[in-house]
């Protein structure tokens, strides 16, 4: 099933590339992502009924294994459903940003990107993961550059060079891990490290390997000091691309990192070995990213750049959860992946709608937008409130999870940056909302209510994303149980 998803997306990508007509390309994009979402849900149901699946092709050390456990299903559903909603929303938005003759290319790149992201998450053998990571960086840089403006080339070059730098670091880490453990499979690495007690005899190798992998993933997933490509790339890309880049692309690398750290080393060794030191660094850097990302976001005047810097802050949360290094911390990080994906994709699509309708990306000129585009701004409000962490929205649940992980691991001081960061989030999302609905311009606005609104059928996918935000905010129980089971399977040795 996992292979079917990857193949489907790749075939869709090729089909979109070769078709000349932009209408056909849109249909291929929409159809393939819908099928992908359905397949992902079917796969999840199968795994829930009959346990994790594993497919191997090839033999010996060359074997490429695809392991579908709970976490992989969770990510596949996320890629499938959020990807489908974003592609649906892009149907009406993309022609604003991308020339007509580049539209087949855009959909081809999006489908190829989703396929490679699925592959990054599914593959068990590091060789497959590495190749998928490289391919996904191409496709990700591609959907930034497809807009064909010089600032996009600038952002794309920056993104490409730093993300290739990240993959080289990851490759070096993988190689050292291979030399130390003699295995290229995450399961084999887990057996070598946990079973043969390599942490005692070869701790320097393993620390170096994980240090390099952490540095590489920090570049790829925009952890704070390595985030410099993110605001440019996410800010200049066409809005649907920004939504995909920030809600899905960053997450695939983080899940790979989680699989490497928690699947490879395991909770017990993390607590009592030099790995703890490394994860402490990850945790502290994550905390710095939480604060710094929000502070930088406050300083922005461009709406998409503000949302992009907010992504930097949210990545900090996820890395803090990983750095805590307990089951609760991992759970909080995984849940935040879901929460950030549904919220941030909605916010980017809303920003795209605003820019498309008003031809303005300056936050200071957005007063009165609540009167001109009430539905769009209501969606922005939902996203903003979820990012701040107001109850009833999914952001609250993930903040709650982080707080309980912090308390559970006795790192009480982390509660201070957590709450400061929530306040900073409020500082840059609320002014936009307040100015749009209640500001002076809103009172003086003479135009009729909703005069610049996009048609509801174009806004429907964004409304569905907002519904997901509220749904997971009100009823997160099933997802939480699912993720708990996933963590158990992920950390079992020799899965």
């Amino acid at each position, binding site marked *: 099933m996992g292979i079917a998803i990857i193949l489907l997306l790749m075939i869709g990508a090729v089909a979109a590339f070769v078709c000349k007509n932009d209408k056909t390309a849109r249909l291929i994009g929409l159809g393939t992502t819908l099928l992908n979402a359905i397949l992902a849900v079917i796969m999840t149901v199968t795994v829930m009924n009959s346990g994790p699946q594993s497919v191997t092709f090839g033999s010996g*050390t*060359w074997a490429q294994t695809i392991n579908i456990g709970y976490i992989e299903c969770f990510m596949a559903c996320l890629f499938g459903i959020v990807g489908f909603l974003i592609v649906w929303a892009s149907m009406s938005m993309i022609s604003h940003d991308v020339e007509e003759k580049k539209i087949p290319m855009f959909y081809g790149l999006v489908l190829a990107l989703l396929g490679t992201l699925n592959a990054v998450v599914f593959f068990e053998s590091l*060789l497959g993961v*590495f*190749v998928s990571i*490289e391919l996904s960086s*191409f496709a990700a*840089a591609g959907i930034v*550059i497809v807009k064909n403006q*010089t*600032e996009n*080339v*600038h952002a*794309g*070059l*920056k993104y*490409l*060079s730093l993300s*290739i*730098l990240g993959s*080289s*670091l990851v*490759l*070096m880490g993988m*190689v050292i891990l*291979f*030399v130390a453990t003699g295995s*290229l499979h995450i399961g084999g690495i887990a057996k070598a490290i946990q079973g043969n007690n390599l942490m005692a005899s070869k701790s320097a190798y393993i620390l170096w390997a994980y240090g390099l992998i952490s540095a590489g993933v920090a570049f790829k997933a925009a952890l704070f000091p390595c985030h410099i490509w993110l605001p440019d790339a996410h*800010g*200049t890309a066409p809005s649907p691309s920004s939504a995909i880049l920030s809600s899905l692309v960053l997450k695939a690398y983080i899940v790979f990192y989680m699989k490497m750290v928690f699947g490879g080393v395991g909770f017990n060794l993390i607590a009592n070995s030099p790995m703890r030191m490394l994860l402490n660094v990850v945790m502290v850097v994550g905390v710095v990213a939480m604060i710094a990302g929000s502070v930088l976001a406050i300083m922005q*005047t*461009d709406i998409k*750049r503000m949302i992009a810097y907010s992504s930097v802050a949210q990545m900090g949360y996820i890395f803090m959860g990983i750095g805590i290094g307990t089951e609760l911390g991992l759970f909080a990080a995984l849940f935040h992946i879901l929460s950030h994906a549904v919220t941030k994709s909605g916010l980017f699509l809303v920003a795209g709608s605003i*820019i498309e309708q008003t*031809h*303005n*990306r*300056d936050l200071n*000129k957005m007063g009165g937008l609540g009167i001109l585009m009430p539905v769009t701004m209501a969606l922005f409000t939902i996203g903003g409130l979820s990012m701040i962490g107001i109850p009833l929205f999914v952001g609250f649940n993930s903040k709650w999870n982080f707080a309980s992980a912090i308390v559970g691991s006795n790192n009480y001081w982390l509660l201070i940056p957590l709450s400061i960061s929530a306040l900073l989030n409020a500082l840059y999302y609320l002014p936009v909302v307040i100015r749009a609905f209640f500001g002076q311009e809103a009172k003086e606005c003479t135009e009729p209510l909703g005069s610049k609104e996009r048609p509801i059928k174009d806004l429907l996918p964004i409304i569905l994303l907002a519904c997901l935000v509220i749904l997971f905010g009100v009823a997160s129980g099933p997802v939480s149980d699912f993720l708990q089971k996933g963590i158990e399977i992920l950390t079992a040795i020799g899965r």
Partner: protein
Amino acid sequence: MMLNLFHNYYEVAAVILFSIGLLTVLLQRNLIKKIIGLNIMDTSVFLFLAAKGYIAGRMSPIIKDGMTDASKYINPIPSGLVLTGIVVAVSVTAFSLSLTLRWYQQYKTLDLDGVVLKNVWRGEKYE
């Protein structure tokens, strides 16, 4: 300690090359030099891998004269990794060079930060 460094000179060379490449990518402003840095990084990883896969006195892992005894050949997996890596590195280089070309045609410079697009974020360039 020093003796170890001397014995593992391949690995030492690979790590030094890797650091050179990393610093080149991060510190150089010229795009072509950045791409060269990326290539140096990749090559150093290949050197590291090839050195790790080599076993003194054995043949390359291509079956010759029907000899299938594994103890006569070196470890084939690192070599395979190197091959995969080379393919990826070549495509990375091609893609970044083509982007660099577009950048150069637009601004007649290879410096990515020199021409920083000053007006883009103020909304002036945007319609």
